[in-house]
């Protein structure tokens, strides 16, 4: 994390601004164990029935599960459905 970004994060924390709003950090919404919505992704990295990897701002989002399927995707959001096991951030 650069010095400027660190300062910006401290400032955002003092101003009570959510990080995803200030730094375009991804927002991940999991609905039960069958659907996950990723907002603010930066592109799809890998796609297989067992996992889906997407790029986020400063991180990698890894969705693990069974029979995963990319339901829809556009420049900012993607929806993955199937039997979810884990959502990891790397």
């Amino acid at each position, binding site marked *: 994390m650069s010095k400027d970004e660190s300062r910006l994060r401290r400032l955002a924390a003092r101003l009570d601004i959510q990080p995803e709003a200030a730094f375009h950090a991804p927002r991940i919404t999991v609905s039960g164990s069958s659907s996950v919505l990723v907002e603010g992704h930066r*592109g*799809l*990295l*890998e*796609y*297989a*029935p067992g996992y889906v990897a997407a790029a986020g701002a400063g991180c990698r989002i890894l969705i693990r599960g069974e029979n*995963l*399927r*990319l*339901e*829809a*995707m*556009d*420049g900012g959001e*993607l929806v993955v459905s199937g039997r979810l096991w884990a959502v990891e951030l790397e």
Partner: protein
Amino acid sequence: MNIVRRITGWAELSITGASPAAALTLLAARGVPFWDVTPPVDFKLTLKTPARCAEHAAAVAASSGCEAAVTAYHGLPALWRKARRRLTLLIPLAAAALVLAWSLTRVWEITITGNETIPDGVIMQALAACGVEIGADWTSFSPDAIRNGVILRVPEIRWMTVKMTGCHAEVIVREKRTYIEPVDEDELVNIVADKAGFITAVYAKRGTAVAEAGRVCLPGDVLIGGWETGRFYVQGAVRAIGYVTARTWYDITAAAPDTVYVKRQTGETTTRYSLILGKIRVNLYPDDSICPEGCDKITTAIPLARAGVFTLPVAIERTVISAYETEPQPAAELREELEALLMAELEGRIGDDGEIVSCEFTASAADGMLYVTLRAECEEKIGKPVPLTDGDLRAIQAKMPTTADNG
């Protein structure tokens, strides 16, 4: 798949390459809508995209280094393109649409509501005479003309209207009311016994109680007289009001042949189907539709309709023919039936305010007949108002004091 996508059409796009995910990222970044992406198998995946974007999507995906091709088009536009090439398919479709449009202007079902005493058949006949029948063009209906025509033909109808819902005509009827004749409160009457009995109570609200509890009365005996009695003399004629209860006895006999044949279903059934096209019936079985002897027929029509939305002149009629045998009814059952009939007759005679104190049945058979006799003791009101005759009035007048007596 939602209805909008079906109408606007969609295409299937196949992407093959070392990194199909990169192609998806590029499509998303370029704003190409897509959905339903299958997981890659052998470096190949498929996705769906709107038909109008298909070629553009293929070009964008190809620019990511993958091979992309539109494999199929679906939805209404694709169907239309196919149908345009096959006129033989298009003509029956157009004919079906025309028939449907024509049939939607016709009446294919009529229901009548609101009639209590007038049979449906009478109203249907009057409606048919006014042009409302199966197959009639409902767009030409004039509600006023139909109402006037039907009321002229069936005078018992006070008001009616025809409500159209799709091809279903609902005929709403209001019958004329039969008013109960009002009681003339000024009429001078006696309360008279309408049956013989042993009097148990007398309540005279107006008039003079003639009957007394503990005495016997015969039909026609005056129970409460239509005159007021003062301390010393009769004051004048009045309308007698009150009631008299009495113990009554009934002896009613019912008879029936001691051998009555009843139906017993054998369990053997045959089902037949017919196609109803408007007023035409097409039997989907080889023999005629006359019910064979020794069979019952139950017919159920299943119309091609959705209640409240549309009705088409097509229906499937299902006829179930059940065979039966006749066999003598057991004597015990016959006796029970006769007893039930006798009990219903007794309850009708004593009315709602009567009460059965005790009853017994006896049965005997003679000359091929079974006789069941009901003997019952009841308690009921036995008085009925009977207008005073001129003779009664003269008799009352005679008992009244004259002016000289008063003086």
